């Protein structure tokens, strides 16, 4: 059987072989159609894979556009957790988590840490309020150069289960251009479609807010897997639990628009603030794919060590401002779970980071006094 690509060697005159007028013959047109068909099929496949054929789909670009619509344009700032300050310190591991995770960070010893305290929300100049959700984001650089990043909030569960829920909530909370306020009916409709968010919001409301950044407990919320030397995988959640005694949040907001940040600076002037890294060990059946659900309160916990925050400084070039605290940046020994929020966060933070990286910068709202 002759191969379709290797014709019998009846050489046409050499001058004619490369004469493209052959494309006008029947044979030429048939070949041209085959070539064109292959190219068109590949372009179509590429376009399909890239989502160009389904422009209405919720992807990371659209999700970030949702933040921008809800909060307005604030070039140079994060699309969420926009108002913040950089922190620096260290983590002293006591070795207690090493049985569950082979990550270097859990061997006994100290690693340097930098990070960021922030308010949830996409407005970089918003006024601090007693019940604003606060966050702690951390970067651990391990001795072998591996990096662990984590972003944690001071709420007990996350209000939405997945990116779709987050987006719908954002859209419902976007001010109506006519009234300048979100439409209450839209929020009601959102809650009706998302009973898991109703339950989670009730848990969040029931947990009292602390008075400041230093006495807040920051929860990782998403589940992860710890993997030890033997390869055993354990579902975990983690939290930074403050050493400072809990004081309830003020009833009304003080005059100072940055009172939460100012109080933190003042607190650190009196000495470092500390948190215990508490690992909650999940049992088979505990949901790893749903951050709206708490785990049973009786789960075993491990105190893995102490985080010391020694200082804060204003966001500036090269510090926490220019860092993407993507929760899927993990060292060997910690793996992401099947929680859909993790991939969605990684994707959305990348778009937010890329946009702000290329935008002009203006000084952050809160500037701690020098030497703080």
């Amino acid at each position, binding site marked *: 059987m002759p191969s379709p690509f290797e014709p019998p060697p009846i050489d046409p005159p050499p001058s004619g*072989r490369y004469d493209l007028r052959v494309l006008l013959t029947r044979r030429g047109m048939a070949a041209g159609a085959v070539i064109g068909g*292959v190219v068109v099929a590949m372009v179509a496949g*590429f376009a399909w894979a890239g989502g160009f054929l389904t422009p209405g789909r919720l*992807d*990371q670009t659209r999700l970030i556009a949702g933040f921008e619509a809800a909060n307005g344009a604030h070039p140079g700032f994060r699309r969420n957790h926009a108002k913040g300050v950089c922190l620096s310190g260290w983590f002293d591991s006591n070795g207690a988590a090493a049985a569950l995770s082979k990550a270097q960070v859990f061997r006994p010893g100290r690693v340097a840490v930098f990070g960021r305290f922030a308010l949830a929300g996409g407005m970089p100049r918003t006024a601090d309020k007693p019940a604003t959700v606060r966050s702690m984001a951390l970067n651990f650089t391990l001795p072998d150069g591996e990096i662990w990043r984590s972003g944690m909030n001071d709420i007990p569960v996350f209000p939405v289960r997945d990116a779709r829920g987050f987006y719908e909530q954002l859209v419902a909370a976007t001010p109506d251009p006519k009234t300048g306020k979100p439409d209450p009916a839209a929020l009601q409709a959102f809650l009706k479609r998302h009973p898991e968010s109703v339950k989670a919001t009730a848990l969040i409301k029931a947990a009292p807010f602390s008075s400041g950044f230093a006495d807040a407990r920051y929860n990782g919320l998403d589940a992860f897997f710890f993997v030890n030397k033997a390869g055993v995988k354990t579902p975990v959640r983690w939290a930074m639990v403050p050493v400072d005694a809990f004081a309830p949040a003020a009833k009304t907001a003080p005059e100072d628009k940055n009172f939460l940040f100012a109080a933190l600076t003042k607190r650190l002037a009196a000495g470092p603030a500390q948190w215990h890294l508490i690992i909650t060990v999940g049992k088979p059946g505990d949901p790893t794919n749903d951050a709206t659900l708490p785990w049973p309160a009786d789960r075993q916990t491990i105190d893995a060590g102490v985080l010391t925050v020694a200082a804060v400084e204003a966001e500036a070039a090269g510090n926490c401002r220019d860092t*993407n605290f993507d929760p899927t940046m993990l060292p060997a020994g910690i793996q992401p779970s099947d929680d859909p929020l993790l991939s969605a966060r990684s994707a959305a933070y990348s778009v937010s980071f890329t946009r702000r990286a*290329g935008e002009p910068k203006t000084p952050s709202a809160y500037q701690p006094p020098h030497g703080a």
Partner: protein
Amino acid sequence: MTPSFSPLSRLLHWLMAVLILAMLVIGIAMVSSLGHYRGLVAIHRPLGILILILAAIRLINRQFNPPPALPRAMPKLLQAAAQASHWVLYGLMFALPLVGWAMLSAAGNPIVLAGAWHLPPILAQNVALYAVLRPAHTVLAFCFFAVILTHLAAALLHALIFRDGVFASMTVRRSHSS
């Protein structure tokens, strides 16, 4: 008839063709997928670095196994276009992974290949530079795809229209015709 590429050259060509096309699809798919982003990026990084290594091996192999001459009858302009396009393809085989590596360095992000295995940054952290390199990675990737499509169309033109043995020089030839 044009003599064939060495078996190693052909192996590298087709292995890399599959990997590069897969990389383009993975790349374009991950930046518009919330659900698959994390998993796809985790494949994208090591696969991209593998392509960089294979490209270096391929370039070295090319010194030892130079490509066969194109058919003498092929018009000089066409020959020059073929050769130029091959160098553009080589350039992109190096440029894409290097820009990928460089942009993650400039972002200050970890460049994890697998487990604890990671690459050092090749640039100091500089987000303004990241803001240039990141879109450059996209533009280069689209150029790569366009050049590959042209290259593929040209290869099929050799196979179906010119029938000059150039296509077979990169594939397999029936034994008696070599």
